[in-house]
């Protein structure tokens, strides 16, 4: 992404994002792939929420085909999605601190993220682009060591998350760089279509997991984290608190994975009936919507992804006007932009 910034001295007058440098026409590619094949491409959109992207597509196909997903698969999907969310927020936290000027937090974040990657590698066979969710459930059953390793991770993570607060959250230099920087009001967050932590930082209740539960989210207790300050610090605090909530969700599910099939029995060739289907999920960055138009064939007629990064980026110009150039990194950091997700 290329930001064209108009300056008056050090004060930002206008920010104009130029997009398309990593555009791969994923939506068009999906039109020539079958309903089983197109899911793997979506791992390449928001690669830090690869599992959740795949989950969104699988949910949309299941909605169209009216496939009943076994309970075990639903719980596995939810645990995987929350592990992905923690991994994504950890990477964001490390990169955010590095943007502001602290180098050490990056290594602290990656130390714990590596444990999640190892868990993913063992069960799904890949560390980043897993392609584990399929229409009807998950591709392969959990690794026998999965539960033990996740429990070990949770125990470790609970000890380490205090370090994050000690190192960065409580740091007065860091707080001053974030407080009252990049203010976004509740009304503006709604009108720009922001979602996820970017909107919740401005007091908008928009957690899809809570408002429109999918998979096993209606079986677990968790809080929708909302801050009302609307500045960068509020968005930062939301992600830190969300990591705790994700751990809480995993804790409730990890000992209660029901026995049974990990995949529903589906036809070899999936054909969605003629019509339009839309599902949405909460990725680590916000609301991801998958819209499929089907003509009744084995491939979709049209696919549209409503990616959270694109809408969140649109608010950057509004947030940045009138602030100093040095604060722009803090604003961009707390929006948590993933460029392949914006360009697709």
């Amino acid at each position, binding site marked *: 992404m290329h930001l064209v910034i108009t300056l008056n001295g050090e004060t930002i007058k206008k920010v104009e994002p130029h997009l398309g440098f990593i555009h791969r026409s994923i939506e068009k590619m999906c039109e020539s792939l079958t309903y089983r094949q197109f899911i*793997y491409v979506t791992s390449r959109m928001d690669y830090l929420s690869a599992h959740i992207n795949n989950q969104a597509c699988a949910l949309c196909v299941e909605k169209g085909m009216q496939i009943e997903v076994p309970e075990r698969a639903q719980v596995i999907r939810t645990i995987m999605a929350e592990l992905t969310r923690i991994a994504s927020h950890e990477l964001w936290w490390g990169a955010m601190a590095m943007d502001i000027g602290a180098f050490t937090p990056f290594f602290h974040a990656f130390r714990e993220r590596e444990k999640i990657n190892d868990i993913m*590698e063992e069960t799904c066979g890949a560390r980043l682009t897993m392609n584990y969710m399929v229409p009807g459930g998950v591709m392969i059953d959990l690794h026998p060591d999965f539960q033990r390793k996740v429990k070990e991770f949770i125990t470790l993570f609970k000890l380490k998350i205090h370090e994050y607060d*000690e*190192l960065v959250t409580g740091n007065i230099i860091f707080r001053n760089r974030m407080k009252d920087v990049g203010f976004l009001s509740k009304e503006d967050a709604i009108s720009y279509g922001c979602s996820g932590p970017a909107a919740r930082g401005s007091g908008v209740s928009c957690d899809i997991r809570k408002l429109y539960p999918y998979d096993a989210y209606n079986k677990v207790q968790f809080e929708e984290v909302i801050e009302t300050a609307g500045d960068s610090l509020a968005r930062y605090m939301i992600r830190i608190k969300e990591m705790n909530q994700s751990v809480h969700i995993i804790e409730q599910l990890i000992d209660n994975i029901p026995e049974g099939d990990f995949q529903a029995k589906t036809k070899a060739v999936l054909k969605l009936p003629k019509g339009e289907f839309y599902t949405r999920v909460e990725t680590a960055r916000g609301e991801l919507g998958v819209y499929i138009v089907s003509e009744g064939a084995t491939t979709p007629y049209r696919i549209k992804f409503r990616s959270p990064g694109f809408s969140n980026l649109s608010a950057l110009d509004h947030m940045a006007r009138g602030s100093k150039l040095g604060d722009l990194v803090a604003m961009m950091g707390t929006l948590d932009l993933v460029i392949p997700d914006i360009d697709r």
Partner: protein
Amino acid sequence: MVGMRRTGYYFTHHKEIITQEYPDNRDTLKLPERFKGEVVMPHDENNEHRCTGCTACELACPNGTIKVVTKFDITPEGKKKKAIDKLVYHLELCTMCNLCIIACPSDAIVMAQTFEHSVFDRAELTKILNNPGSKIMDGVE
């Protein structure tokens, strides 16, 4: 000051090495058994594989990575039977999505843990998975 204390703690308590010394640890590096590195076709000691040439993997592949070239064998009873001549695998196109592996009805192909795929000539990435002179195992339909 709290943050400095944490930094100081790690400075004096460096008992655990969490980095990997790749590529010096190639001998001891063990990847998970499900790791998706490359599609391979296992053969037994009699140079026999399990592939029937049904092309399910070719149809499942989103990128055109696999091409199954079939031929007709003559069975001892004198009947024609479809069998693979070559299973061509384009590693350079493969995204390791695992769809071919789960599509295979006879478990003829699996994912291998090899991951160092760099070569000097692009043509080396196009592989023929079945061994020369191999044939299908008895009992696999």
